[in-house]
């Protein structure tokens, strides 16, 4: 009844409505969705067929509900999906507004009507860094009642982590709590999100288009605002179609006796049409080490040549394992799958919701091959193995160069991840591929992952760059850019690593930039120099607290790049401490200050 009333007047005849209502009572939610899609498809078919188009050819939305697509992203996946969704919606006559949670003016929230949310989850169940402010608002006391709002949430996540898709779950629950109405159930996507995301998009667009069709028939003749531009700016190469970049340099840039193996890699992008801004990342579609695949095949007893089907394509198992699946780190899904297949009590015991911590620890200490060796399953078939494996994901690296200084090139700073587990050497997929298995002249499939939340200021505001280890990479790009473009801003770099003599990444370049004035100041902290107290970047920040605060007061932008747990967290705390001490304010005020820096895009982090 109310539903009928909410339709624009005259959308259906009463008789038609009674049929629909009678039918609706019998429908399961799945059937309802199907029927929604059916009618939407029918509508589209009618449009294409052109027959009854006279009424609908110029569909109107102005009198319909507003639609906002809100995304929260760390690496850009949610943004890309949001853009695709907006394009699909526009094609269907809807007029979506697209907004990044980091930019979104939260005061507009109370006036929203239809809200589609796409959000990824970061780390252990946290929202993406740039979206933290939005979450604080939404989950805080100042959030408005949203009774007029209809919504649906697409949650992106990674089942390798505990608290899978947690950010999306939190928004979904909170919107409901604030009185909003769900127009489609939340869909949670694992890292192989393409298919479920497309299904969700189609379902919500179909639903909204159907609503629009109703109102449109009632009020024709109002022009459609121009849709989100698509196509023109789309690069020829992207994540789905990476470009084969030629390796033109690949050398260790740590000196003798270093405890690290950090490498400098230069890739040739000529002919790709790929462009990036300093601060963007390069995605590398890495492949697994054949030796690791061999170990897994041996442990499972499966044949390398066994034919299997992946996404409709029949390939040899060894090839699939090498190129399509994560074969080293086991996900909770694999644990689940292997527990089911083997019935092993030890694995079963790790499955419960309340065992998350133990599960996490277990997965940290047991790769796929370790679990298979420990709980062998003679005669297991390839599909059962693959069902537990995650699709192989590209790896992202902050670009360490600027196109202005090195046209057609992207430089990377890569520290191979290596450790020993169960007496065997283990290594990171991409980092070890770049370090051990790629030589100058080889090609690597790459794409650009733009990072709108980590880039140079548009003005000549001072910049404070804080990075440890390979986290210094984007700053090399920043300074190359400033040098090449002759930008005359003040810059200050804090860099930390283990040993001065061997690990001072790009030392001669910083020295040169200091000499030329491209880099104004530099402070370094080395944590493992003999006879010196362990010193980290935050210690140097504290030593320079007065000047650092002065720079902040003068409008400096602060960048933090590197490891979250071992650096960024402490740096964040230190920033608050410096603001509190130097600004002589209490902790809450200092936190507000830092939060405001972030919301003003003056505090940007690229942490992992």
């Amino acid at each position, binding site marked *: 009844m109310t539903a009928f009333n909410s339709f624009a007047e005259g959308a259906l005849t009463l008789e038609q409505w009674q049929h629909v209502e009678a039918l609706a009572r019998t429908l399961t939610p799945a059937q309802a969705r199907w029927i929604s899609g059916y009618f939407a498809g029918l509508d589209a078919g009618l449009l294409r067929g052109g027959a009854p188009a006279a009424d609908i050819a110029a569909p109107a939305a102005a009198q319909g509900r507003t639609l906002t697509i809100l995304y929260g992203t760390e690496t850009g996946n949610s943004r890309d999906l949001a853009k695709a969704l907006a394009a699909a919606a526009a094609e269907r006559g809807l007029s979506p507004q697209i907004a990044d949670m980091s930019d979104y003016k939260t005061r507009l929230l109370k006036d929203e009507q239809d809200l589609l949310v796409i959000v990824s989850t970061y780390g252990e169940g946290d929202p993406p860094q740039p979206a933290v402010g939005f979450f604080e608002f939404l989950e805080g006391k100042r959030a408005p009642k949203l009774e007029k709002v209809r919504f649906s949430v697409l949650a992106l996540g990674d089942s390798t982590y505990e608290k899978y898709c947690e950010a999306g779950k939190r928004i979904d629950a909170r919107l409901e709590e604030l009185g909003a109405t769900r127009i489609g159930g939340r869909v949670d996507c694992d890292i192989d999100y393409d298919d479920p995301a497309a299904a969700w998009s189609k379902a919500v667009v179909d639903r909204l288009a159907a609503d629009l069709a109703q109102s449109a028939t009632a009020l024709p003749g109002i022009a459609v605002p121009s849709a989100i531009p698509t196509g023109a700016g789309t690069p020829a190469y992207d994540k789905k179609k990476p470009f084969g970049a030629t390796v033109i340099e690949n050398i260790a840039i*740590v000196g003798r006796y270093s405890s690290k193996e950090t490498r400098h890699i230069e890739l040739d992008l000529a002919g790709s049409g790929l462009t990036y801004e300093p601060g963007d990342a390069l995605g590398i579609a890495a492949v697994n080490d054949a030796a690791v695949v061999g170990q897994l095949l041996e442990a499972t007893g499966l044949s390398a040549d066994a034919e299997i089907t992946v996404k409709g394509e029949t390939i040899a198992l060894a090839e699939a394992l090498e190129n399509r699946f994560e074969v080293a780190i086991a996900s909770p899904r694999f644990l689940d799958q292997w527990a089911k297949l083997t019935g092993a009590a030890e694995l079963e015991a790790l499955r419960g919701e309340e065992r998350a911590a133990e599960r996490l620890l277990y997965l940290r200490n047991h790769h796929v091959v370790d679990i298979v060796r420990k709980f062998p399953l003679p005669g297991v078939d390839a599909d059962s193995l693959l069902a537990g494996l995650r699709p192989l994901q590209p790896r992202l690296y902050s670009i360490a160069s600027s196109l202005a200084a090195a046209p057609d090139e992207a430089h990377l700073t890569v520290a191979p991840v290596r450790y020993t587990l169960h007496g065997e050497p283990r290594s990171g997929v991409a980092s070890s591929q770049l370090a051990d298995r790629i030589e100058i002249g080889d090609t690597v499939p790459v794409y650009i992952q733009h990072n709108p939340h980590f880039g140079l200021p548009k003005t000549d505001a001072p910049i404070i760059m804080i990075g440890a280890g390979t986290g210094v990479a984007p700053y090399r790009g920043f300074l190359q850019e400033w040098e090449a473009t002759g930008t005359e801003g003040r810059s200050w770099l804090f860099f930390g690593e283990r040993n001065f003599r061997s690990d001072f990444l790009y*030392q*001669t370049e910083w020295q040169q930039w200091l000499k030329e004035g491209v880099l104004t100041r530099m402070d370094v902290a080395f944590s493992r120099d003999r006879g010196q107290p362990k010193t980290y970047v935050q210690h140097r920040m504290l030593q320079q607290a007065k000047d650092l605060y002065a720079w902040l007061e003068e409008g400096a932008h602060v960048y933090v790049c590197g490891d979250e747990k071992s650096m960024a967290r402490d740096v964040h705390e230190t920033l608050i401490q410096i603001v509190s001490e130097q600004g002589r304010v209490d902790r809450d005020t200092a936190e507000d200050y830092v939060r405001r820096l972030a919301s003003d895009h003056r505090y940007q982090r690229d942490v992992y």
Partner: protein
Amino acid sequence: MTTDTHDVDRSTDLSQPLDRLGPDETLKYNSDYLRGSIDQGLLDRITGGVKFEDNKLMKFHGIYQQDDRDIRDERRRQKLEPAYTFMVRVRLPAGVCTPEQWLKIDALARAHGGDQIRLTTRQTFQFHWVVKEDLRPTIQGLHEVLLDTIAACGDDARTVMATANPEDSAVHAEVAVLSKQLSDHVIPRTRAYHEIWYGEQKVATSEEQEPLYGKTYLPRKFKIGFVVPPSNDIDVYSQDLGFIAVSGANGLEGFNVTIGGGMGRTDNEPRTYPRLGDVIGFIAKDRLLAAADAIISVQRDFGNRKERARARFKYTVDDKGVEWVKAEIERRMGAPFEPTRPFEFTSNGDVYGWQRTDNGRFNYTLFIENGRIIDRPGKPLLEAIRAIAHIHRGKFRLTPNQNLIVADVEAGDRAGIDAILAEHGLAENGRTSALRLNSMACVAMPTCPLAMAEAERYLPDLIGRLETLLAAHGLADEPITMRMTGCPNGCARPYVAEIAFTGRAPGKYNLYIGGGFHGERLNRLYRENIGEPAILEILGEMLGRYARERAAGEHFGDFVMRSGYFAEPA
């Protein structure tokens, strides 16, 4: 400062305005008496090195920046600066130290100096591989045992040498005291060293800080040595200023003075050359400081400050004439030199093993190849000497040939020292070819910035090959002085050796032959730019002829000079 009324060319000396002299003069003048920005440079964490100007000034503090040249190129590719470390040279007049001082040197070497000590050709300790942050701890550590590094390098009067002759103790002791007095007298007076390295407060003062040197110090380094004949171990003719001890019935009476010696030459610069000092007369021992002041001040006032390659005292002596220089010194001393007293040298080498001294005690001279004290498998030399230092009740003397004398040992303590040597695989020390025992090489690669070829790391191998030739000709026990340097500058005093090699390029050396066995004659360039095969062939032929044709007791250097190897006489 005296006014000069003599008719000599003053166009390149201190009388000229700074801007007409070499850039180093301005640098010294503006350094605020050797301070520069050294203290700030030590705090700069972006580089392991120091600024160009500060490096020059730090030489006056006995320190200079080097880098590991073996990996210079590798580090450039790694986008890392060169692996800078510092060489720290101790000021050790006469090469004498106590066991307590030795133990501190040993501890500092292990803490900051790459687990090794280098004994230099000028009787002192050198630490290599000291990183910038370790400089202050190293120098403060030395200070704890009353050692310093003042003027161990730089344009000043260097650490003063003295014969280490193990057989003589009374004269040696007196000469050692005088060399310490002289060294203390001629080092810079500036408080910069105390401020920078010991952290002492700067005291404002209006009085002149350097009565001897002034603001621009000397034109170039100035080497001083005492020698006690018949040993010429310090190569007195290679010193800018040499004092040849003359003893009479009542012990030390005074010194014959030599001026204007020096080894260095510059490649492809014929106006530079090694030169033997001239003996200009005798002074009584109580005139020592007055004579040194006069001589140093002459070089200060007349030395060439326009061209560093021509700035050593030897060129001043040649340019002004030795008689003119002598007269100017006498004028400044206020007294003439007495006539030279007779003296005789027999050797510039060391005598190894136990020697009884004139006071009834014993000295043990330990052969240390090229002065490098380091623990090697089966031969833990650093450890051995540390053990000796723990029980030794006398002194240590460093010799000008880079060896070490355990001096003033009571007869009853000999066995203990022998036991330590045996325990550390050193029982056979000194029992090697006479050629090796009389050889010397400078540090060269990989730390010395001037080196063009290997020296210390290569000479032992080359000698190994020559020993085969020597044995074939029955010359294994024939002492022949052989010296190798990585460049033409002459730190190992190559130009007075009977056979010498100076580096030109990796694996390539100039071969010099014919120096006097006790340092009395310069050798001559025989072949340029040759590698090992040519060296072995040429020396093989010469040694063969020497074995067959030499007169009784004739030294190799004397033999080759009369045997037609040079078309014309020197």
